[in-house]
């Protein structure tokens, strides 16, 4: 029997809301995921790209971009290094599978518990982020599929914009900073109002 995976990084794992009650509150949702960092061995990057394309059908993206395929995504981290995002249900299996597949090609490091994925959406999502982040996230400057590692609320975050018309951003943040970031987001969204939904308890 495996132990319960208490996925939420937030102490009171209950939906919450606050701020002014307006028409366009910021929606904040914790999105638990399987996160695996792959770091290419020296001179093996092409093999890594090929192996990921073959096994996961993901084309590892260039700097500043994300790639998606089915229920998975790949985010560029740094030269030779990517973060693979998969459904939370694969936490127990994907890191080991990739370590085997990429043996000798890349270092494979499980970060599923080390990073927390927070999705924010709503008409004022950009205005909220403008209070916490110095990057230009206007649609002309930061299109769907764009990604950037930067500071949000004074902490390092990987931010990427998901597809679709409505502003929707995902923040990947170190899990020990997750609650701090949530505080910063809700404070910045106070004048619009906000709703927060943490991840539920996962099945045993």
């Amino acid at each position, binding site marked *: *029997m*495996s*132990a*319960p*995976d*208490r*996925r939420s*990084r937030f*102490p009171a794992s209950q939906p919450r809301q606050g*701020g*002014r009650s307006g028409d366009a509150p910021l929606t904040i949702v914790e999105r638990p995921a399987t996160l695996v*960092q792959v*770091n*290419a*061995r*020296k*001179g093996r990057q092409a093999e890594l790209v090929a192996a990921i394309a073959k096994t996961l059908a993901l084309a590892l993206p260039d700097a500043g971009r994300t790639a998606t395929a089915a229920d998975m995504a790949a985010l560029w981290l740094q030269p030779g*290094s990517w973060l693979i995002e998969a459904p939370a249900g694969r936490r127990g299996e994907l890191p080991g599978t990739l370590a085997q597949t990429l043996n000798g090609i*890349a*270092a494979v*490091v*499980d*970060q*599923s*518990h*080390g*990073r927390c994925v927070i999705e924010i959406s709503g008409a004022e999502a950009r*205005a909220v982020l*403008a*209070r916490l*982040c*110095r990057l*230009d996230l*206007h649609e*002309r*400057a930061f299109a769907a599929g764009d990604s950037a590692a930067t500071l949000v*609320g*004074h*902490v390092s975050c990987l931010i990427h914009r998901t597809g679709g018309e409505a502003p929707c951003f995902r923040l990947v943040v*170190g*899990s*020990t*900073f997750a*609650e*701090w970031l949530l*505080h*910063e987001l809700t*404070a*910045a969204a*106070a*004048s619009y*109002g906000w709703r927060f939904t943490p991840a539920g308890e996962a099945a045993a």
Partner: protein
Amino acid sequence: MTSRRLPSGGLIDRSKTIRFSFDGRELSGHPGDTLASALLANGVRLVGRSFKYHRPRGIMTAGPDEPNALVELREGARREPNSKATEIELHDGLVSRSQNRWPSLAFDVLALNALAGKALSAGFYYKTFMWPKRFWEKLYEPLIRRAAGLGRAATEADPDHYEAMHAHCDVLVVGSGPAGLAAARAAGEAGARVILCERDVLIGGGLLLCPDHQAWHADMLAALRALPNVEILPRTNVFGYYDHNLLGALEQVADHRREPGEHEVRQRYRTFRARQVVLATGASERLIALPGNDRPGVMMAGAVLAYLRRFGVAPGENAVVFTNNDSAYDTALALAEAGLGRVTLADARPQSELAGVVAARGVEVRLGTEVAGFDGKSVMLRQRGSSIGEPIVADLLCLSGGWNPNVQLASQSGAKTQWNAELASHVPGEPVQAERSAGAARGIFGIGAAAHDGARAGEAAASASGFEGKPGFALPHIGRSEQPLVPFWEVKADGKSFVDLQHDVTTEDIRLAHREGYAHIEHAKRYTTHAMATDQGKLGSLVGAAILAEARGEPVEAVGVPTHRPYTMPVAVGALAGHASGAHFQPIRRTALHDWHLRNGAAMQPTGAWLRPFFYPKPGETGWEPIFREARAVRSAVGICDVSTLGKIDVQGPDAATFLDRLYINNFSTLAVGKCRYGVMLREDGIVFDDGTTSRLGEDHFVVTTTTGNAAPVLEHMEFHAQTVWPELDVQFCSISDQWAQMAVAGPKSRETLAAAVEGLELANEAFPFMAVGEGRIAGVPVRLFRISFSGELAYEVAVPSSQAETVWEAILAAGKPFGIVPYGLEAMSLMRVEKGHAAGPELNGQTTAADLGMGRMMKKAGDVIGRVLAGRPGLADPGRPRLVGIRPVDAAQRLRGGAHIVGEPGSGTSLGWISSVTQSIEHKCWIGLALVENGESLKGQRLFAVSPLHEESVAVTITSPHHVDPENARVRA
């Protein structure tokens, strides 16, 4: 007190009445008023006392240049001093008070300063208060403090919220007059992302005072509001122009209300990163120095026009307008239209083609005339060059000495200013950053001319940021050109003529500064405090420079102006801090067990970025009791401690071992798989950088642990060397600090506890000895186990995927229950590490070498190691350096203090070292400590003294081994 409100006109809403108070008097005004316009409308003439002489002062301007009308706003925690009445939007219930008067505004005791004027000339602080010395504390300082008060700040915490907001645009337009509006529309219609900032609540700048251009103004506003790529920000004052086209601004979100609404910030600090900037900041009217030019009733001519046209207020009954240029003719006409008793225009120029026009509308024109004095009731006129004056009854004196383009932001951006002889003022020079000035801000005056200039600037700015398009909208026609002004700075006559009203700097002060050798403009400024007040001396800065130039016998342009620096206006520090105060000051990290600690009564304390449990007090426990109880449990049975804050770095690759061998002074290539080893890392200068244990999980796979505080610096250090020094090494590493929660399970019963909890790993001493590493499961969760000890007891650390930390923590607590397991906090951990003699933060202090800490022999014999060469420098290798030792009081009842100096004899002034860490020992039943003492090795067993002059203490101490418990290290191997 009569109402000065005109029967009609102005941009105020006469259908509504607003009640407010000034110095306790209940007054009323209308929406659209400023506090200044409402005070003037109520006939309030005296609004403050001057800073040095306590002379009576009145409202002088209608905007940010105001030197006099500084008031205290609101009450209690929201009390705010030094607000300019000319910039405060009137709101219901506004409470305001005059400043710098005692006991009351009308009767001010310190106005006697005015009679003692000689003693208060420039530099008087330097000269007067030098002697006698004892007078300073008793007399001078209290007097100066009382006299110099510019209002009182609130003493309670500010109840309001502030925030920062960062915006980006192609074209930032500062100022919304004709030039700014045209620039914003031209750039916006070309497709650029445009932000238009206006400090005023109303958009329009000079257009607000020009009834002729109302239709164009309305059309421009409608067009701009229809463009989705244009954002208009009123009440937003751009105060600074910084490098790489970053500008800072303050948005007064809720200052026009009594208090902010729920979830509303009071002020917002904004930054703009703009590809191109158009500075349409307009111009400021300048003062003329003449006797009595500070009296209530003296106002700038442009301000009077604003009170008449925008606010429907006539600030006097009989007026004299004194000018050297055409602009003030508008004011004279508007005064005549408003129906004042008598309006006289004194033009310093000998001729004016406008004379006939204004005379026909009832203005009495005197050409070639100057004002030689004003006493509040009458103006002394005289022909220029004559000494015979003619008094004219007037309670309002309007001054216009010409207009200075507002070049502050352009100048801050790095552009040098240039002298423009036609304007007798400075204009922005060649841009250094991506900016251009437009309209009055570069000396292009008149609505039509400024609008055309703005449209050109907007088009050029859009084009430079990649958006092409000719302005397709109508622009006002360019009017007649103005007659040249005559540079005119000062009327020399008897009496005090001011160049800086807020700091009470007179023309004589400037000349005195020059006589005393402060002839450079920057020196004269500081000697006289000219242009250093909250208004930045905008009215008289150039006038002062002109007077200094005259004293130097040089033209004004040779003197220059002091450097312009941010801020162009006072900004509250609270607004700049924004949201980042109190609990939001800096990021706070929480371990995966944070919630458990809170639920179980931990006393949480910030340590660096983290909140950590210091101890878990039980009901009734005080002082050291919970710490002793927790430490005793570990020494006698078993305890569990959250050590998740340690930095953890996953290191992989064929060259991982080689890489670690170069980072640490000891070897890791020789470490067996399934073992861990303590390592010490140096900086390249030979000083200890960090320490921790490193485990070998596989041939090419290590996990490094760092101290909590150095987790980020160590990773950067590793990245620097892997990326730039040894790029040939095939090594990959990344932080896994947040992936793994870590807990120490320590104490003689730790093995039995874990044996009851762990599946899949044999924990017997032979199977899993000291410094062994293995994997198993606890409560079904895959964990990593390390047999390491910080407490000095038999101990393990368990690493757990952080989402499952609580499950594992609870399982260990359950398994340890039969042995009396307790959770222990940072304080008990610290107590035990001092007992054991482990170096930590106070010893790894950026000054100690490995040898100083007793670890010199860890340095490997050969191979490249960071810090090896410089650690061998004679100064660092000197055996006499302070060495890590243990320390105990001779009398067990005496306490030790961290920071106490070690001396050979009581009273000796020669320090041999210092106590770095102390604790009360549960093993020795007394205070013990660690110390860094010169020749410490050879002093063991000797009696020295620990002195703490702060506490007037001198304690006899014995130097010991740093290992206060179990020096043979038997327990950890048991």
